[in-house]
């Protein structure tokens, strides 16, 4: 059963060309749906297996580690795999309807194949145990993402994608340089070997430079302030489905890379004790939370508002990591999952709005909640979750982050968490107020109806997930906390 680790990645990777070969829009969609559900099933079984029997190591072609490429699935891997596949499993059915309006039929097979490739790349980054392999999958997912982002109807999607392409390539190159430098120093690319050999050479400038390149490259990918500038535009002008999928998964995978490299490869003792990583990440996370939330309040395009809110939420995840404590890491890793389901739900609600009225501008939302009650009820619950109201998933993350800050007695961080959630109240409430309590300016769009069920059902699956994981936290918290324990104990 160990080969599930590789089946996970191969499923979307091999079915992506199928979409192109058949070249039928509906068929391509159905392939994508089936593959994403199969992948979800695989990642669930992986999580169960890892939970029961410990990490899975799969050697490709039977070649042992230093020579061949291994796939390494531990609890953190399985958890992030679950995030990616479960989001994909909900997004793909949604895509069927949403893509109809946003992508020309002739391009749809290619669109779905790119979506599957992107998924394959993300899954590959997470499950591989080889540093260079990370870069390969990173490029696969990035190239697919560029292609997907550029498909937006608004022509500004082209320029914003081009910018992302430049930035993403720089980020990818930095990561490659970082990997190259440690390869030079240690002579291996296998992560476990790297972890063994790096401590001996850790004091060299080369290794420091390599880590700097890696961190900056990864931070660019995960859009940590001030390297977030590409994100708002890229998210705003992309097709709804792409925004949902990318916003919910790709930054999470980048955070995973940061965790993997700094905790497992370089080692928590070296990175956080000898290098001032906390001192760098913590202020950036704090500024990211504040600036992202402030900017979100000022946006008039709600999609852009959510994009800025993502910048802030990424700040929370990095904040959790920079505590380097069990509860902080638990909070950060937990928030990977919770933010994925929150943001996917919010963007899905917005995608349904875009599907019905073709705009996500705040003025276009006036009085819309009466016409689209289910969509906006979903948005409101997602909004409560992002604010961190009890009984929603967001609350659980907030709980652990506050706990971590209190343990460390970092009062400023507690204050930042407070201000951050107040700012979230403002930007979410702004939308709720406009949609629920204002009346539309002109009555011409009175025929606007509730979004079709194909959009509503995936949205509500996520909304219910937000409530479910706010009440029953055993799956998420236990996975996150054992991942945190594993990361902290990995090299000590």
């Amino acid at each position, binding site marked *: 059963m160990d080969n599930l680790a590789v089946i996970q990645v191969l499923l979307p990777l091999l079915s992506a060309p199928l979409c192109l070969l058949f070249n039928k829009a509906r068929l391509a969609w159905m392939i994508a749906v089936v593959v994403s559900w199969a992948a979800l099933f695989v990642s669930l079984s992986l999580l169960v297996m890892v939970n029961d029997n410990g990490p899975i190591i799969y050697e490709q072609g039977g070649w042992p580690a230093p020579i061949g490429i291994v796939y390494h699935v531990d609890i953190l891997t399985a958890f992030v795999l679950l995030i990616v596949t479960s989001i994909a499993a909900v997004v793909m059915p949604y895509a069927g309807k949403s893509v109809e309006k946003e992508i020309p039929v002739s391009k749809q097979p290619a669109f779905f194949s790119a979506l599957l490739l992107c998924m394959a790349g993300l899954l590959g980054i997470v499950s591989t145990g080889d540093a260079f392999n990370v870069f390969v999958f990173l490029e696969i997912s990035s190239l697919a993402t560029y292609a997907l982002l550029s498909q937006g109807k608004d022509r500004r999607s082209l320029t914003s994608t081009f910018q992302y392409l430049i930035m993403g390539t720089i980020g990818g190159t930095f990561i490659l340089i970082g990997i190259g430098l440690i390869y030079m120093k240690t002579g291996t690319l296998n992560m476990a070997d790297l972890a063994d050999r790096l401590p001996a050479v850790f004091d060299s400038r080369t290794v420091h430079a390599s880590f*700097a390149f890696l961190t900056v490259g990864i931070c660019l990918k995960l859009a940590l302030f001030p390297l977030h500038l590409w994100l708002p535009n890229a998210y705003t002008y992309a097709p709804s489905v792409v925004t949902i999928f990318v916003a919910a998964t790709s930054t999470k995978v980048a955070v995973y890379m940061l965790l993997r490299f700094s905790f497992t490869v370089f080692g928590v003792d070296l990175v956080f004790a000898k290098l001032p990583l906390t001192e760098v990440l913590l202020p950036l996370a704090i500024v990211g939370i504040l600036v992202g939330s402030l900017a979100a309040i000022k946006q008039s395009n709600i999609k852009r508002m959510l994009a800025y809110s993502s910048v802030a939420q990424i700040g929370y995840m990095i904040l959790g990591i920079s505590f380097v404590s069990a509860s902080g890491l638990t909070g950060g890793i937990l928030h990977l999952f919770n933010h994925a389901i929150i943001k996917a739900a919010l963007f899905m609600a917005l995608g349904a709005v875009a599907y019905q009225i073709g705009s996500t501008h705040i003025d276009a939302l006036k009085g819309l909640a009466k016409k689209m009650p289910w969509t906006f009820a979903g948005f409101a619950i997602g909004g409560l979750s992002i604010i961190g109201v009890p009984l929603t998933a967001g609350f659980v993350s907030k709980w652990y982050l506050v706990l971590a800050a209190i343990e460390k007695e970092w009062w400023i961080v507690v204050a930042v968490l407070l201000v951050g959630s107040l700012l979230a109240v403002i930007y979410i409430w702004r939308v709720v107020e406009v949609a629920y309590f204002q009346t539309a300016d002109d009555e011409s769009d009175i025929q606007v109806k509730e979004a079709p069920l194909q959009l509503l059902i995936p949205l509500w699956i996520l909304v219910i997930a937000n409530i479910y994981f706010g009440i029953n936290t055993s799956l998420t918290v236990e996975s996150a906390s054992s991942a945190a324990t594993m990361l902290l104990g990995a090299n000590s």
Partner: protein
Amino acid sequence: MMIEIPPGWLLIAGAIIIAMSRGAVRQIATLGLPLLALVMIWTLPEGAGWQVRLLDYRLSPLEFTAVGKVFATVFALMAFVGGVFAMRTASRMELSAAFLYAGSAIGITSSGDLVTLFVYWEMMALGSTAVLIASGTARAYKASMRYLLMHAFGGFVLLAGIVWHAYTTGSIEFTKIEIQGPAQWLILIGFLVNVGAPPFSAWIADAYPEASPTGAVFLSAFTTKTAVFTLLVAFPGTGILIPLGCFMIFYGIIYALLENDSRRILSYSIVNQVGFMVTGIGIGTEMALNGAASHAFAHIIYKALLLMSAGAVLYQTGKSRCTDLGGLYQSMPLTTICGTIGALAISSFPFTSGFISKSMIAQSAAYEHITWVWFLLAAASAGVFLHAGIKYPWFVFFQKDSGLRPSDPPKHMQLAMVVLAFICIFLGVFPQPLYDILPYPVKYEPYTADHLVTQFQLLLFAGLAFFLLLPMMKRTETISLDLDWFYRKLFPGFYKMIAGFVSTIYSASYRFIVSQFPTSIRKFYTQHQGPKDYFHKLYHSETMVLCVVVMLASYLILFYF
């Protein structure tokens, strides 16, 4: 045997039923569920019920105490009478939100642990915001935003306190909490925000008057009184509460005397009355706590009655300012009578519910020999009579004839008012049923000759003062400046300042960096600049790359040295 679910859940379920249904089902839910909850409250045993696990803690959502039952009873009663009052006129959303609100308030009374309490606490904030916003006016939208932010702030402080308390003591039990350090202070502050203690007193009079005539009735009953309940359970005898409570008493009186709008007068009067309860909790003897609990019970009833009468006037005339009203007794006799009974009750007139509850607090101050508090409370009693006991009914129902001739409100509103007026008098004449359910045995006899004489003297002289000073009491169309100025004007201004600051820093550093470039590059760079505002600027790839370079350089420098 009934299944043991917390009674609050019935009303929360009712919120969903009301939102989904119409016609008879909705009416049955509105009237039946609060009564059913009331029955459940008195059939459920006291002490810990079933438990459930959340995070790393065992939660106990069904753990009634004696004092919890007192509050739960009056909350369920208010949900019922409020439902009767609002049934035909309130919007579906308002009624549904009000049930969520009432249900969470009852939930708090049966919470055995702080996490459950916090969950209800936040639900209550959301429910009450929705009640407020359901009034549908532009002023209500703005007020609801401020209201929500205030409670989000209080909620977060409470959360931080609970997390910290759980971390340091390992217990999340909701019981008497000894103040040992900042954790407990944060919990206390979280409670104080909702109770309307200084400097958080302004939100009450900022928000409640913007609610609909029916919404204000619900709002007045639950938020501040659940906070009184939590203080009563967690912080009895905490000294700081005495000066805070006294401050609230006089804050309420002074602003209510200055105020023109009848519903704002009554809102300030909530702060004033809750001040009595907070003082009682601060004194912390058995008698004082009994007094605080019974006063909360009595207060919810008569304040709801007062707001119903003010709401009935608003509903019939569309006006709520004293300067616009007057002489309504001629055409609204029932509303006048009920409003006056409420006014007498709030002034502790003998044979009303205020008389048998408030005096317990003052008496306990006397027993404890906290003389200054006793004097302040006595003086405040006169002040209450001035602002709520005489001023409100006088200017609304009597004084000059405003020429308005509205009829009494619809039957269901009349019925609700009569029920509450009856309870006010019933409790005043037969206090024993209320005394029997109080947490501690009552050894207090309100109807002594001494007490009656004192109270009549006090009321007589206060009344005399009012009519002598009548010219000064006449309100003009003024607005009193309050602490809410800070978050109405100062904080938005502060936000603008921060945003402006970020933008300025950004453009200054941008200009500085660009000015360091050779001229040729700089020209290329400055040619195509978009909007200058930081938050709306569309960035150029050059800027982004520049950021990357700066970041890489700083990481390298930091990692090297």
